[in-house]
């Protein structure tokens, strides 16, 4: 891609080209035609993972068995640790595949639920995205902008539905609260907190951007340690826009709420929250519903929104690790800069064939 091409223009062009380029062997096309069977889901990532919760919600053997709400079933699983994959398969009634691309042609979509494998996600999911198989990308979606761009370019080229989200983006509040902005008038300040033990679990920025928009100009992150938070403060400076001066979204990892937010405006204040006692079902089911929609053929968000979200993530890390917590302009982090990995040796080249 030419350095001068904007991200946005490339994605639009790619999507147009790829409208009819689904590869042979994918079951994605079949799923889009609405069958009378459940969508078959391929599982990636069994370590620092959501799969313990998700499988429970989706499976007849789980706590919420019998629900007809979901049209997905866990059908296949791959993990580098075969024993772990076999244990998962035994518990949830699915089939182990021997290689990471072994689910091609067997599933309607793949869902990566892990944190540790995110730096290699672009390699793991490459064959699936290139085959048009709907894919869920585990947050924070990448460890380098270049790797995320590779996935998004592929998705645009092959018109592959993608869902790349954090749980909080799917809460009801993230949808309806945007309408409440009209009550506060010109925004003066925004504050939010969420309970998080590490930065990847600090989901509130994504929810807030869904409410406020993605027009983030600068970001700073101060914390004792993004991997084991004792205290964390993230500040997003929103650029000036139509009739709305610049303002700061200030977020803390703290407190007993799942999330809490307040928007202060010239004409009023609006607040919402989710208590810490909220059930796992109400916390995680909304995202699974939206992932299901993706597996049925509809990307959850435009690809440029996915990119902007990750740009904010990588800017936070860059502010903390490279700039002592001082503000960094979004869009200025070098595409090859990578934040320190949780498990740098988790995978290597021998695990993938490219």
């Amino acid at each position, binding site marked *: 891609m030419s350095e001068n091409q904007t991200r946005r223009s490339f994605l639009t062009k790619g999507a147009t080209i790829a409208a009819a380029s689904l590869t042979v062997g994918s079951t994605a096309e079949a799923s889009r035609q609405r069958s009378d069977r459940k969508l078959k889901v391929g599982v990636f990532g069994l370590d620092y993972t959501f799969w313990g919760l998700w499988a429970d919600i989706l499976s007849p053997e789980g706590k919420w068995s019998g629900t007809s709400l979901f049209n997905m079933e866990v059908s296949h699983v791959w993990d580098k640790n075969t024993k772990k994959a076999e244990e998962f398969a035994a518990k949830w009634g699915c089939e182990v595949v021997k290689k990471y691309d072994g689910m091609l042609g067997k599933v309607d979509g793949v869902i990566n639920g892990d944190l540790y494998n995110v730096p290699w996600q672009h390699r793991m999911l490459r064959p699936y995205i290139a085959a048009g198989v709907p894919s869920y990308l585990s947050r924070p979606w990448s460890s380098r902008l270049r790797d995320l761009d590779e996935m998004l370019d592929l998705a645009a080229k092959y018109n592959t539905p993608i869902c790349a989200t954090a749980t909080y983006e799917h809460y009801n509040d993230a949808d309806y609260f945007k309408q409440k902005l009209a009550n506060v008038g010109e925004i003066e300040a925004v*504050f939010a907190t969420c309970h998080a033990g590490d930065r990847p679990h600090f989901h509130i920025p994504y929810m807030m951007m869904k409410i406020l928009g993605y027009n983030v100009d600068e970001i700073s992150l101060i914390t004792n340690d993004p991997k084991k938070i*004792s205290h964390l403060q993230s500040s997003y400076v929103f650029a000036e826009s139509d009739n709305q001066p610049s303002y*700061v979204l200030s977020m*803390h990892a703290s407190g007993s709420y799942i999330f809490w937010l307040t928007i202060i405006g*010239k004409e009023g*204040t609006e607040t919402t929250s989710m208590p810490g006692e909220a059930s796992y079902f109400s916390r995680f089911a909304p995202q699974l519903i939206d992932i299901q929609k993706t597996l049925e053929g509809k990307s959850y968000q435009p690809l440029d929104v996915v990119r902007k979200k990750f740009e904010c993530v990588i800017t936070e890390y860059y502010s903390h690790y490279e700039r002592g917590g001082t503000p960094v302009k979004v869009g200025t982090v070098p595409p090859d800069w990578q934040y320190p990995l949780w498990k740098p040796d988790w995978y290597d080249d021998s695990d993938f064939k490219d």
Partner: protein
Amino acid sequence: MTESISRRSFFKAAVAGGVLLAAGSKAHAKRKPFKRKSPSSVEMMEVGIITCGYYSHIEDIWGRFLNPPLDEINGTFWPRQTGMVMTKVWDPDREAAEKFAKKYDVEVVKNYYDMVDKVDGVIMSDYYATGWWPRLSKPYLEAGMPSLINRPFALSVNEATEMINLSKNNNAPILVPSSDEMMFETIQARHRLDMKRKEGAQVTGAMAFEPCGEYPAHGVHSIYNLYTILEPNVVAAGLQADKWWEWGRKGGMMSWLCKGEGDSPDYYAAIRMGQEFDTNGWVLISTTKGRIFADNDHIGEVFTRYRNLFVPTCIEFQRMIETRKQPQSYEHIMAKTMTFLTGFYSHCEKNGALVNCNGVPMEWRAPEVMPDRIPDNIF
């Protein structure tokens, strides 16, 4: 991130370090301390004003409470609301002093020290004169006179220490206020936090929003306000802003790293300093036993708004003159000043990074808006 040295231990050392006066040298004002004769007697405390001409709190706001005009101001009548009356004023700008004197019917004095023993207390008012407070306040503190030294108090740690030591050694009570600190909402928030702390609650985070157009004259209100509610052990502070004066719509973002209480971890306080004419002041404190919220809308009818926001400071000063007891300890005054200076240092010298409070050089001086406000030849 710099080490988390306890700010409190540093403050104790800094305040104690300057006690150098010879034994037996505690001075007292020749004028007798103010004392009312009886509950029904009508004597007023006489107050002298030091600076009144530029960015002046006394000229624009407090003056009307002490020497209320006879006519309405923009349709609002201002009755007397304190037991004090201004009687004298000094400003190096003679024209400004005379204009003030005419407005409030007070006497202009020739020299800044001419009010020693002539009034019951002095108010050092104008923000632009902050860099000269140590010199302007010296004769009054040495005379043991109650003094209101307006925020942000000092532009360096050395200067803050100098004034505190003079005050302490001469038994001259000082009030270093932000209007916000004395508001009902702030007092209530502090009370509710105290109640929670008695139940074993520990603070885990704080957020605040303050309408203001710049850092040192109005952003400082949010610092004093939050500090007074929390009384935290501020380990480090940082100010992120494009500029510290007239910062426009983007405003500023101040962060404090505070030592955790009890077995709670260290926590952050985030203060969003907005733009001028924003309307809602707001504080949220998170604790292990729930949240405390204080909201002060800067909107509504001017008389009621001013009564809540500005009159309490005047009453506290009046109370200090009469009792000679400071409403805030020297440690409190120094701590909030240090937090302010650390933010300033962070912005000017460290690009907004968090700076350990005891990493600010004692002699480092914050910049001034009007470096020639007070000419040297008046000293």
